[in-house]
């Protein structure tokens, strides 16, 4: 039997899943609770600061890498979930899921590195 090409999408899925499991709770805390609990002032999330983060090359990378992996994780997860729910049109589902992730990736590259 031929070896599968699934490692490409599964690799992104696994990396994105691990990353989201570790990073998202921290992100939720920083964005959702940090200000409310008074750990730092709301100015931390001011437009100017966010803009500066997204303008810094390292900041760009820190925004891009996890988001890229996480949307590919979501794409693969939705494809498998559709299969688990009994949707048999796997080709179409895969095209829609991975297509959306590809569009998201291109949009991010454009917004962060080109525009």
């Amino acid at each position, binding site marked *: *039997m*031929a*070896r*599968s*090409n*699934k*490692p*490409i999408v*599964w*690799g992104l899925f*696994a990396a994105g899943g691990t990353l989201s499991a570790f990073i998202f709770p921290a992100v939720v805390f920083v964005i959702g609770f940090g200000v409310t609990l008074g750990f730092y002032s709301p100015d931390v999330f001011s437009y100017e600061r966010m803009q500066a983060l997204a303008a810094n090359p390292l900041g760009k990378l820190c925004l891009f890498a996890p988001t890229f992996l996480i949307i590919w994780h979501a794409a693969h997860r939705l494809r*498998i979930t559709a*299969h*688990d729910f*009994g949707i048999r049109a796997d080709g179409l589902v895969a095209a829609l899921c991975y297509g959306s992730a590809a569009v998201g990736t291109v949009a991010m590259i454009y917004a962060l590195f080109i525009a």
Partner: protein
Amino acid sequence: MSRDTVQLEILRYDPEKDSEPYFSTYEVPFNDDWVVLDAINYVKENLDRTLTYRWSCHMAVCGSCGMVINGEPVLSCHTFMRDYGDKIRIEPLQNFPVERDLVVVIDDFVEKLGSVKPYIVPKVEKTVDEGEYIQSPAQLAVFKQYTACINCLLCYSACPQVGLNPGFVGPAALALAHRYNLDSRDVGRAAREDVVASNPGIWECSFVGACSEVCPKSVDPAAAIQQTKIASTVDYFTDFLTPWRKQ
């Protein structure tokens, strides 16, 4: 709670005679110490000698008496009557053709099991006179959990992917492939990958995890499959990035 009797609703089916399966109900005495298999044996010995089912060891070692009891795949020798209500519904394992009553046809599984080479492929074949293949306790600990599989097929009955894709190699066979891949005495991983890393191999698994939940021997096939996915993904990219190293 004291009970005198329990009703067993057992699925009956003889593909040569019956157009479809039906349930027969048997009243059996309640016994606090009985496992469900004891109750089925009572039916066979006292009420209906035509009832057909497999069993052998009565101690969760042989893996023959897997059945679906009240909707869950279990070993009937490992499941006490007292843990159920007044009615116990007993069906054959799901995802297999029924041979007769509670006996399923497992030829397909046996073929899949053979396809993953579930035996040690040594680097150098030794004769008996040349002695054993030495292994340390640490090397044994790496794979020992996966050796506990008794091929009872509860995992195949529980796995939704086995039901959806009959070609899927399935939890037990993939867990055993992993067991031999992890064995320090074995060099057969590349040969197993042809089946294991194919689309009907590990990649049909969507990590539902039902296999590990129903496993009576705590083998955890779901973990075995996910670990194999990581190893195969590393292989894939290693082969891609260093094509000159490819075997």
